[in-house]
């Protein structure tokens, strides 16, 4: 690939993945995705769209057109804070927030997000904690996020962490429930049994 090809904004037919829209519409809750009328209510309603590479309306258009790489590598899916404003305002009742979750899962599975990208690190660490302890502990979660993504270096962040620690709001204690006790209601069994 030439340097120009790596940096060019123009996409050629051969760059596109024409099955991408099918993959997305097969995601849970992606069923109505293709009925989007591109009205832009979602992008207008989204409080995060000013900070996104592409707003949700463009993400839908790009998905349908096959811009798989651009969609999965965009910061859009990670900036979505799940406030559900787009889904509530969509005249076609597309569950846009849930489609964003689907895209996040795809990006995580295919590993196309930047290395140690904070949101992905947070999601994975959260997942791991709940998987092992049944509950999430904010202190250890925040610590591992800072250590692995390097934001701990920021002095103001560290100072705040210390204040919160002194207030007893973040501790190093891990919250947990019994896992794998083989009695009624065992969470470990439930999570193992889900397909």
């Amino acid at each position, binding site marked *: 690939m030439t340097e120009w090809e790596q940096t060019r904004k123009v996409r050629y037919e051969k760059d596109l993945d024409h099955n991408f829209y099918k993959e997305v519409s097969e995601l849970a809750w992606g069923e109505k995705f293709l009925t989007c009328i591109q009205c832009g209510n979602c992008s207008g309603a989204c*409080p995060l769209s000013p900070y996104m590479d592409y707003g949700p309306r463009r993400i839908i258009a790009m998905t349908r057109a096959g811009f798989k790489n651009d969609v999965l590598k965009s910061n859009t899916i990670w900036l979505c804070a799940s406030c*559900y404003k787009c889904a509530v305002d969509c005249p076609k009742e597309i569950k846009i927030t849930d489609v964003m979750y689907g895209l996040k899962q795809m990006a995580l599975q295919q590993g196309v997000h930047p290395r140690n990208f904070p949101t992905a690190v947070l999601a994975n660490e959260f*997942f791991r904690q709940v998987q092992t302890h049944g509950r999430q502990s904010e*202190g250890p979660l925040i610590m591992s996020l800072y250590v692995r993504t390097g934001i701990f270096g920021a002095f103001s962040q560290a100072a705040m962490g210390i204040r919160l620690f002194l207030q007893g709001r973040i501790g190093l204690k891990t919250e947990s429930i019994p896992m794998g006790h083989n009695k009624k209601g065992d969470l470990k069994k439930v999570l193992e049994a889900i397909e």
Partner: protein
Amino acid sequence: MKYIYYPGCSLRGTGRAYEESLLPVLKALEVPYEELEEWNCCGATAYMSVDEGKAFALAARNLALAEDRGSGEEKVPPTIMAPCAACYLGLNKAKRYMSENPQLLQKVRKALAAADLKYKGEAVVRHPLDIFVNDVGIDRIKAAMKKPLAGVKVAPYYGCQIVRPFAEFDDQENPVSMDKILKALGAEVVDWPLKVRCCGGSLTGTMNEVGVRLNYILLREARRRGADVVATACPLCQFNLECYQDKMSSWYEDPIRMPVAYFTQLMGLALGIPPNELGFNHVFVKPEVALA
């Protein structure tokens, strides 16, 4: 009937002042509750990003545990009280999507069966705001008032996940349940159109510049509207709005100091509960903000 109290992880961590103020308020208003035993994390937004099937199973286990426990009365559905916005949404979302999607329901039921649990779909998930306004009632709250929040200007902040997309107890664009409670307790409620605009949730931790900016927009407008204090009903909103004010002040060269309390802390003060029993030692806001 006893409400089945589901605190969620945050109320045992950064949001402990929420639990520490909610419980005495429930006691003062004689609302019976009991904590759900061995509850697990609701999954929040992070878990959903990794594995959707597991996220629903996670939420459904709590619903099944609540059903197993029952409401103690015939014809009354087991009612979960979820004060955290993310838990409220996560549990309601699982309930709704399982009722709309038989395949998902079957999948989750099968997984629950492995742990000898059954999910019938009876359990109801409600927010304390809903319970205060619709079960306890404004009249009873008013009757229990000991020290009115006179002269305090409050900006009630609902955030996203309490009202969107599943809440039926209030309006999605202009919710008023917290306004009603605070007004009844003597506070002046400022008109603040950003009350359902997102605080960014965990973005303050992952994409800090953006997350802090969103919260600055909220606080700046609350200040412009003359608020003395912002009242929240979600642990993450409270954390975001309160803890990044130093950063905002230096980034945007605008010294901003806006107290941010849980609505239950303000209720507690009005109900005459001593401030040191309302979790004020676990937040930056001081009770004096609402004491005349």
